[in-house]
């Protein structure tokens, strides 16, 4: 079919090269000599790399059985991940007590989900939100730790795996967000003491590596604490991560605050709103909306940073998997372990990023073109 033919009759179908998959391919993959070269190169790389990878991951892999002898060196030994799966999820948490973790996480997921969907009315959301921030953390700590209401006491050293990763990450996220907000507002304050304090705080914690903070929290703090006063190692680590991330959070939020035109502040004043009312009702909602990508970025970074607590001997998902492939029985299965960790982390981080995109679309009120 030629071009002239198509314009002669409106009823005639467009040429094959202009529709469907062929058009898409032409426009996206073969639109010029550069793109064509890159496409061919990519196909070649996939052709070379994919078959061995698939062989390793799927075709030659061992999944049945419960023992190392079920594995060969030809492919991945998923038996290892299968046998250790629940340990990766809960760490050393005693098996008969794991329902406690499940209950807390189910309630947590329901609570968060109800805050995230648009089907729940705003008033109900407010109640749920306040409960999630006040009652729920206490409930979670009581359920995890026990020692009251006839629940068996379980030391934090028994906590581990993905459960611990999620606990640390959510505690640090929930803690660092408000702290970061306060620091951001404080840094823009006209009061010199408040401003200096916030600047010093942010610059200090942004200027040191997280590992040093964790190290300090884990081994130095107990040396400084007075005799008899102890703070749990995990709690110290969570506080350390929270403080560290609040500094980053503060700078992201400050970026948002600075993007709000002066007129908005003045309008708030003109309406007779106090400083805090203006902040809460006019400035912050706009500022936070503007920095959603930055906030989610920080959250994802925080989520992945939690793996660093491994350095102070707390077994999060990464630590648990690493410890497992040093067990004499499963020696040498590091690849399988790391592949599993990659998958888990990717699922969580990708979901967070997807949700932030959804949020941006939902909150888009058309200020920006």
């Amino acid at each position: 079919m030629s071009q002239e033919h198509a314009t002669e009759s409106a009823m005639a179908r467009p040429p094959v090269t202009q529709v469907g998959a062929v058009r898409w391919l032409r426009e996206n993959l073969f639109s010029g000599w550069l793109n064509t070269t890159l496409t061919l190169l990519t196909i070649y790389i996939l052709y070379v790399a994919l078959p061995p990878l698939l062989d390793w991951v799927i075709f030659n892999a061992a999944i049945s059985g419960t023992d190392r002898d079920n594995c060969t060196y030809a492919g991945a030994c998923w038996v290892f991940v299968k046998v250790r799966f629940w340990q990766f999820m809960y760490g050393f948490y005693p098996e008969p007590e794991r329902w406690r973790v499940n209950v807390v996480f189910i309630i947590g997921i329901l609570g968060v989900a109800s805050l995230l969907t648009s089907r729940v009315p705003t008033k109900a959301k407010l109640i749920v939100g306040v409960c999630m921030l006040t009652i729920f953390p206490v409930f979670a700590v009581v359920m995890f730790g026990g020692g009251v209401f006839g629940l068996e006491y379980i030391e934090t050293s028994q906590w581990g795996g993905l459960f611990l990763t999620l606990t640390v990450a959510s505690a640090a996220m929930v803690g660092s967000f408000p702290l970061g907000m306060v620091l951001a507002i404080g840094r823009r304050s006209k009061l010199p003491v408040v401003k200096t304090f916030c600047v010093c705080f942010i610059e200090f914690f942004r200027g040191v590596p997280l590992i040093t903070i964790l190290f300090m929290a884990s081994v130095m703090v107990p040396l400084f604490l007075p005799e008899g006063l102890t703070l749990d190692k995990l709690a110290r680590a969570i506080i350390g991560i929270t403080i560290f991330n609040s500094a980053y959070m503060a700078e992201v939020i400050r970026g948002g605050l600075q993007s709000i035109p002066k007129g908005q502040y003045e309008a708030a004043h003109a309406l007779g709103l106090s400083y805090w009312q203006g902040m809460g009702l006019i400035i912050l909602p706009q500022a936070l909306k503007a920095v959603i990508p930055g906030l989610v970025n920080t959250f994802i970074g925080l989520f992945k940073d939690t793996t660093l607590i491994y350095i102070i001997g707390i077994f999060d998902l990464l630590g648990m998997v690493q410890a497992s492939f040093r067990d004499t029985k499963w020696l040498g299965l590091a690849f399988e372990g790391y592949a599993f960790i990659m998958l888990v982390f990717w699922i969580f981080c990708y979901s967070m990023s997807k949700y932030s995109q959804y949020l941006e679309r939902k909150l888009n009120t058309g200020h920006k073109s």
Partner: protein
Amino acid sequence: MKKLNILAAGAAFTFAAVGAAQAQTSPTLEATKQRGQVNCIVSEATAGFSSPDDKGVWRGIDVDVCRAVSSAIFGSPDKVKFIPTTSKVRFTALQSGEGDILSRNTTWTLVRDVNLGFEFTGVTFYDGQGFMVRKSLGVKSAKELDGASVCVSTGTTTELNLADYFRANNMKYNGVVIEGADAIIKAYESGRCDVYTTDKSGLAGDRTKLSAPDEHMILPETISKEPLGPSVRHGDQAWGDIVRWVQYAMIEAEEYGVTSANVDDLKANSTNPVHRRLLGVEGDLGKMLGLSNDWAYNVIKQVGNYGESYERNVGPSTRVNIPREGSPNALWTKGGLIYAIPVR
């Protein structure tokens, strides 16, 4: 009693104890009894020395030391809280009092013994740096490694020992310095270097990670001394004594043929005075340590003797597979260095 330089916390106990009783008192022992568990600092994961098994139970030679101490004190090997640490925080964990025993494949050196304020209670494993090469390389001795490329991990004494050894023997090498044991073994396997060097305990385990372990061999030379053993804080010698004599009891049990299998029988029937003293049938050895007299019986019954612990954790039946015959870790009667000071 030799308790003169005990720290402030222990001072009161000390004055009460001097001349008062035969039994030693140890602030750490008292605290441990009150707590109901021994706080034991172990490695976060070192194959054969300490690692959690499928059920989350800690296993390994280093772990067994703490389990044995728990058996001696409580009559149960499970009253231990394991505190996994990385090598970076292990010393502060003991210094800060977070743990009572540091049993984490730690080399006993003068600096650590004196300067860090620790007291090493014995050697559980004589380790030393060695070399692994491909058999196809045709090398039979480390002295033939001139010009080889050597994979070594960053910032460890391993790197320094390597440099010293090659310089002392007038040889050159290309160091391929990599962080992390798993990355190094992959680099070695992919041919980035001819030689892989680390402590022999690690080499044996790492060899099993290779896709064809039989194509590689460990060279006979041991170029460094790495005596690994548990340690405790300075200032509570009585506690150090307990850990030390628990270790010696395990070795003496092996020397005199006492195993977890026959210990009940020997306790009931043996007429050998060594057995009778060790198992608490005669004498008051346990009481002197501030323990019950069946302390060593419990250790052997519940954890086993030194040989049993070795075989179970790093012996040829495990994947770690560090042969004991002909190594320094054989009993002294078989040409090794494992020797117990008499438990009497």
